[in-house]
């Protein structure tokens, strides 16, 4: 297990594609890992303290990582525990393993996630599990659990997997969704625009678009795309 602690407040955001892979390396190697501090490429050891405890394939990010982006991007296995908040693009394109964020997560959590698990104990930002700019498909597998609230545009173009939000979500949930499940225990805004398939379950209030048909399965649509998506209450 590798424990990484920020040494200071970062003047601009840091980009660090930290994955549990680092836990297989020595402290010295980890300290040399290249990260981006604005327009400078620096060694991880310059900005963070590094400690190794045992051989478990686990990364503990101890402190405020809200200004550190791309944590867990493309990870395939192992575990990352963030003991604070985390910056944008956390868990982007991840295929396996688990990320636990004890604080909040910024925008673009779990971009096009294809496997594994993300748990956020606080709130998440916008664009959770969505397709990145210009891509056709969002999240395809895996699970994202947000214990607090989430922002707008959750699960756009989702084609599999599961997003569970214990609190409220923002507007435009599951737009152009094709498959998978989104569960919202609180309330949210518009749901399921141009939804083709999949299921959205909501406990609280939400705004239904005019293009869904009431059936015994729930609300089915979006008729504009001859969709078979289902929206129902939890």
């Amino acid at each position, binding site marked *: 297990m590798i424990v990484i602690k920020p040494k200071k407040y970062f003047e601009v955001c840091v980009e660090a594609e930290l994955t549990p892979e680092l836990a297989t390396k020595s402290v010295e190697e980890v300290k040399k890992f290249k990260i981006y501090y604005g327009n400078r490429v620096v060694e991880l050891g310059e900005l963070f303290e590094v400690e190794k405890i045992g051989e478990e394939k686990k990364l503990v990010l101890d402190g405020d990582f809200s200004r550190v982006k791309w944590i867990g991007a493309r990870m395939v296995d192992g575990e990352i525990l963030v003991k604070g908040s985390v910056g944008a693009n956390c868990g982007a394109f991840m295929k396996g393993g688990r990320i636990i964020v004890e604080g909040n997560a910024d925008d*673009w959590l779990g971009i096009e996630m294809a496997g594994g698990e993300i748990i956020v104990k606080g709130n998440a930002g916008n664009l959770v599990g969505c397709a990145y700019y210009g891509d056709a498909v969002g999240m395809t597998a895996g699970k994202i659990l947000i214990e607090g609230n989430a922002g707008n545009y959750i699960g756009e173009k989702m084609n599999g997997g599961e997003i569970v939000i214990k609190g409220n979500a923002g507007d*435009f949930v599951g737009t152009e969704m094709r498959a998978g499940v989104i569960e919202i225990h609180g309330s949210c*805004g518009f749901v399921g625009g*141009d939804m083709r398939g999949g299921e959205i379950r909501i406990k609280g209030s939400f705004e239904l678009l005019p293009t869904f048909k009431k059936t015994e399965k729930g609300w089915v649509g979006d008729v*504009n795309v001859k969709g078979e998506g289902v929206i129902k209450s939890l």
Partner: protein
Amino acid sequence: MQVVQDVVCTFCGSVCDDGEFDVEKKKVKKFCRLGSSKFSEKERIKAPMVDGKEVSYETAIEKAAEILANAKRPLLYGWASTANEAIRLGVILAEKLGGVYDQCASVCHAPGTLAVIEEGLPGATLGSIKNRADVVIFWGANPAEAHPRHGLRYSISAKGLLVKDRKQRKVVVVDVRPTKTAKMADLFVQIKPGYDYAVISALRAIISGNADVLPSEVGGVPKEKLIELAELMKSARYGAILYGLGVTQSRGRDRNIENAIKLIQLLNRTNRWVIWPMRGHYNVVGAGEVPAWEAGYQYAIDFSRGYPRFSPAEFSAVEVLKRKDCDAALIVASDPAAHFPAVAVKHLKQIPVIQIDPFPNMTTLLAKVVIPSAVYGIEAEGTAYRMDGIPLRLKKILETNYWTDEKILEELLKRVEKLKG
């Protein structure tokens, strides 16, 4: 008396190019109130300044270069009111600096660009619209206040090849309030703020034969009225939706436009329809086109890794400032201190700011380095793209001692290259 003909206006995105400028009286004819104000004399930044003290251009540029070259992530913002030649240098400067390039569209029509990424842009030039469009819908757009001559030259009462006059054209306004433009319309559809997306979805359903699923009212509009609008759309030989900030700056933003583009795609199966944004600044299109060919993206471009990356969620100026993710800023031909939300301005106050602009504005008040520049279209020549992408050459009609943005940026780039090695 010397009169310059075919003067090109450098105020709004309509970029009218039929002005007449009297060089002696320094007065422009034919232009609207906005264009006339553009060409009238007004207070200028007198000289380059560093920390409020007047200095030479060279000194100010040297100081600016130092600040930028030392920054970890400089933000280079503005660009919608300058010429392409300057913008190109700005993009290259951002690349050399490993900074962020963003432009005014990000608080204006950039959600439209996000929609283009999703669905494309089935559009037309303004000349096609004036010649052919027998139905014109202004959606969340109020040209009577923002583009005063648009209606006359291109849309409402423009005389065209197939549509000869106002009588042959149906004009519709969809808005949340009865704007000045709404008063000129044949049909005004007032919708509840934040319900553009739902209304567009409903129109798509009606046009594709699914009206039966709709409730009796959508977004504050009775179903009958929506059917009336849909029928009007289906009756057009050539229709145009011209959308404004009413959709890009409100709930749904890019998703509203994406939905409208899907509506246009659908309509084209039976009629001809086009959609186009009512772009604001005279060269906001150039501020996106130039970086697109130089770096692949229109705005919100980060060069910190030595190559361009696009992410409005992270690299748009407002997000960069809100996240305190820049440590210096170069502001060219823009006034973010006046036009950004307070929380973004707050960070701008905390970092060194360099401003290049002809006129003093709120950003001048917080800038460390201020570099005055010539006004394109009056004191400087260059290229700009009208709201529909039509390129026009801006004229120099008056002499000036002010440097052009192009010259300032060229010098700045040279010095930055030297400092960066």
